[in-house]
Every structure is written in structure tokens, then in C-alpha cells.
């Protein structure tokens, strides 16, 4: 891309529960964490993107977050808005920021997200169900989040022969990565086995509890900057080599392809814009609300052949030491699912891997990272390709 847009800085706050913080307070905590880690000159930042605050937690969605935070940060950007495409918001921010930089509309765009996932008990599951399903044609049937994803899992199993054990293998692999991340929520729980997943309590078949991501609170920020600016901030930025989007169904019952959703279209566009092929990818960060997602989207992005995703995880090929590290930060499954902010985790981790800043979980070769995110019920997809060389 023109002007070599790159992620020059990225920091994720430790996921957890922050009852003392409001939705906007979470944003302030995330930005303070980011500013402490990176010494940046506010005058160099002329773009700012944020997500609506307080959607998932049931506080009124604040859609002027970008105004409030930009002012608070002393920014007067020439490129700024509040962006929302659910979990895809943050890869889409990176995409939008890279266009803006490519077209000379901005030089450095700060992107931020913070979120709270409501507790599943105490009415949280019902409130979330109302938000993510069609209120009149899905919600009334007892639809809620794990059940809606289970529909995709069942169809994938039917079409492609994916097994219950293979789903469990995703949770096992992802937990192994989480044990290498000092901030991962489930790190203290230690490793898990296939049997642990298979014996955890049933939620919505084929999912048991350990097939589900862990609700929590958190967020992150990252800076996308013109190549020369990025290189002044850090010796090895993560260049945005390509990106692709595809906005598929609304309600999940309208999905045309339950085994892939809209992911292949987004990934194909990303590879085309980068001039790369799936075999170039060395590390993958895939939005994993449930175990099936890692399998579905590893296949849908072309990183493994259709029907091979389950076996890939069962054979440990995505785990530490495997041929293609997948969800190296521990995934939403074991790092934590931060509600509105969840989709930023894989963008941050993809960047940190490429930048060589991933510590104990650093992939041996992170020359090209694929990030795949989606929003809604696997409705809108955005794939990013990040690399060491522009």
C-alpha cells in the first residue's frame, strides 16, 4: 500500500473484571495503559477511531466516543469517527486507517476499544440474546449466543466431518498458548485435556462449557502510522499488507453457508490486495468465540483445506511448537472475551507477533500474520494480513 501504513504501537489491558469502571472509564484505563507503554507525541497523531461504549454491558451505547476521547487526549484529528461492526470493528479500523494513510488523509491514526461482557447469569444471557438475534423471528424461540454458534458447528460437522473431539482439541490448543501469556485470564487454571472439555457441562450441543469463550472486561489500543513515522516509533512495525471485508447475513437464520459464513470472501479480498497466498502465512489470529470458529475460519481463509481444520487441531499443528501457530495469545477461549472490545485482541496479537514483541509465546517465524475477525453472529468479516516488510 502507498505510504506503507503499519501498526507502530499496540497494547492490550489485562482482561478481568473492573466493577469500579464505567464503560467510558474502561476506555480511559485502556488509553492510560497504552500511553504509559509508548512514548508518543500527541502532535503526530491526526486520526482517531473508537467503538461505541457500553453496548454489550447494556449501558446506553455511546456513539460520540471519538469526540469525547479525542478532546480528552488533546487531539484535533482530520480523520475520526466511532466505528461499529461488532467484533470486526477493530480489523475494520485498521483497514480504514490504512486507507486514510494511503490516501494522505491522515499520517497516524489511534484506534481504541474497551468493553465489558455482561455476566451470563443475572439476566446477562437473555439481554445478549435479545441483542444478537432477530427479536421477533429468532429470540422468541429461545435463541441465545452459544446456541446460535452451535448451529454453525452442527452444520460444519455434517458437511465436513468435523468431530466433537476435534472441537475439544481447539480448546486444548488455545489453552496451551494462554499458559504462555502473563495476562491471560485462564492462565492460572493450568492446562486442560480433551477429557476436561468433553466432561464439562453441556451448554448447547455440541458445545460444552469449555468450548465457550470466557466473558470478561478489557480493551486495547493500537496506532496505525505512515511507514516512516512507524519506523521512528519502533524498529520493526507490523506493515498492513492487505485487508478484505465482507458483510454477509443479518440474523444467523438467514446465513447462506453455515460452514463458512462470509469469511472466504473477506480473506480472498485480503490476499488479493496483499499479493500473497495462504501458504505465505506463518501465524494466525482468529476470532474464536467458540471452538468451532478456529476450525471454520482456518478453513475459510484457506490456511487449511475444507474439512481439515478439526484434524489440524487434533494433531496439535496450531499449538505451541506446531507448524502454524493459531491464537498465540490464548484466544477469546482462554485469554478472555472482553465484550465490545473482543475483536481488538487478535489485531493486537497479530501486530505484536510480527513486531517480535510476543515474549514467551513468540512464534519462531512471524514474517506474515493473518488476522480474521467477524462481528454479529458471524455476519461481517474482516481479514488483515500483517508483515515484517512493507
Amino acid at each position, binding site marked *: 500500500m502507498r505510504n506503507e501504513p503499519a501498526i507502530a504501537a499496540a497494547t492490550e489491558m489485562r482482561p478481568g473484571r473492573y466493577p469500579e469502571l464505567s464503560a467510558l472509564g474502561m476506555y480511559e484505563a485502556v488509553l492510560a495503559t497504552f500511553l504509559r507503554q509508548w512514548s508518543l507525541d500527541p502532535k503526530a497523531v491526526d486520526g482517531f477511531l473508537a467503538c461505541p461504549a457500553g453496548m454489550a454491558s447494556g449501558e446506553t451505547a455511546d456513539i460520540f466516543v471519538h469526540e469525547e476521547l479525542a478532546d480528552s487526549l488533546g487531539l484535533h484529528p482530520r480523520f475520526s469517527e466511532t466505528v461499529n461492526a461488532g467484533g470486526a470493528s477493530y480489523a475494520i479500523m485498521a483497514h480504514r486507517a490504512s486507507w486514510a494513510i494511503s490516501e494522505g488523509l491522515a499520517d497516524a491514526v489511534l484506534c481504541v476499544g474497551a468493553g465489558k461482557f455482561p455476566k451470563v447469569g443475572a439476566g446477562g444471557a437473555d439481554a445478549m440474546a435479545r441483542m444478537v*438475534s432477530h*427479536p421477533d423471528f429468532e*429470540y422468541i*424461540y429461545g435463541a441465545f449466543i452459544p446456541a446460535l454458534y452451535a448451529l454453525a458447528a452442527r452444520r460444519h460437522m455434517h458437511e465436513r466431518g468435523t468431530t466433537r473431539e476435534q472441537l475439544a482439541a481447539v480448546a486444548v490448543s488455545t489453552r496451551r498458548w494462554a499458559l504462555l501469556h502473563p495476562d491471560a485470564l485462564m492462565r492460572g487454571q493450568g492446562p486442560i485435556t480433551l477429557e476436561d472439555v468433553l466432561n464439562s457441562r453441556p451448554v448447547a*450441543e455440541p458445545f460444552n462449557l469449555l468450548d465457550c469463550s470466557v466473558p470478561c472486561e478489557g480493551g486495547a489500543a493500537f496506532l496505525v502510522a505512515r511507514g516512516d513515522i512507524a519506523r521512528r516509533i519502533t524498529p520493526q512495525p507490523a506493515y498492513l499488507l492487505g485487508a478484505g471485508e465482507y458483510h454477509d447475513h443479518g440474523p444467523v437464520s438467514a446465513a447462506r453457508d453455515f460452514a463458512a459464513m462470509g469469511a472466504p470472501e473477506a480473506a480472498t479480498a485480503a490476499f488479493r490486495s496483499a499479493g500473497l497466498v495462504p501458504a505465505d502465512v506463518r501465524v494466525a489470529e482468529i476470532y474464536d468465540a467458540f471452538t468451532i470458529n478456529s476450525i471454520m475460519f482456518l478453513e475459510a481463509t484457506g490456511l487449511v483445506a475444507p474439512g481439515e481444520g478439526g484434524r489440524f487441531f487434533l494433531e496439535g499443528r496450531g499449538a505451541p511448537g506446531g507448524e502454524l501457530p493459531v491464537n498465540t495469545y490464548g484466544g477469546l477461549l482462554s485469554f478472555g472475551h472482553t465484550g465490545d472490545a473482543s475483536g481488538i485482541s487478535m489485531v493486537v496479537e497479530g501486530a505484536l507477533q510480527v513486531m517480535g514483541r510476543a515474549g514467551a509465546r513468540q512464534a519462531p517465524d512471524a514474517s506474515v500474520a493473518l488476522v480474521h475477525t467477524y462481528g454479529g453472529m458471524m455476519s461481517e468479516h474482516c481479514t488483515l494480513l500483517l508483515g515484517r516488510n512493507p
Partner: protein
Amino acid sequence: MKGKPLPRVTEVTRPYWDAARAGRFVIQRCGRCRRFVHYPRPWCPHCWSTELDWVEASGRGEVVTYTAVHQAPSPAFAVGAPYVLAVVRLAEGPQMMANVVHIQPREMRVGLPVRVTFEEREGGFRVPQFEPATG
């Protein structure tokens, strides 16, 4: 305990819910391209005609995918758990979500032929559901 949720009835969806109250299953059909449309909306998603008619549907379909829900989202659904949540492709083409009733979860399968039935809810509402189409 609060009963199962009720749909909001809008100008666009009223004919669907009125028909269901009378035990009839109707969906929209485009007056221009003649394709069937569901869920109800003010336009045809295939050709953008705004001329849609309500027609009696066969009530037949097959299961595209399903799950048995063990952990219900609310007490109203916990009573019947595990219950089957499914996506059904109607014989007319469109897909819809419903519960498949009168079947054990372990007997469910993708491709199962189903037919419409109705579930009574509060306020005289009847909600279309599906059951195995035997014979």
C-alpha cells in the same frame, strides 16, 4: 414466572401473526419476480420491488442445522430444556428459525423433513413451530 417472549407486531409483520393466530402459516411472495420472502419486510430482497403479497405456504421444510439447548437463556425456556433450536429451509425456499417439537434431541438430524405446527403463547399469540413430518 414470565412466559416465553412474544414478538413485537409491526405494520409489516401483522399479517403473519394474525394468520398464525388462525392456525395458518403464510409468507410473503414478490409480485414482480415471484420469489418467496421470509422474514417479512417491506421490499423484495431479490429485485427490490415493494409489491409483496401474503400467500399460504406449504408448511413443509427440512432441517438445515440444529442444536439442543441445555443452558437456557431465561427461566421461561429452562422449563423445557434441553429444547431443539433449528434452522428450517421451507419448501418455498426461505429459511427460518424455530424449535423442532415432538422429538427427542438425539433423534434430530440435518435434513429431517418437518412440517409446521403452532405453539400457544400468552395474549392469544400462536407461534409457528415445526415437528417431524412423518408420512
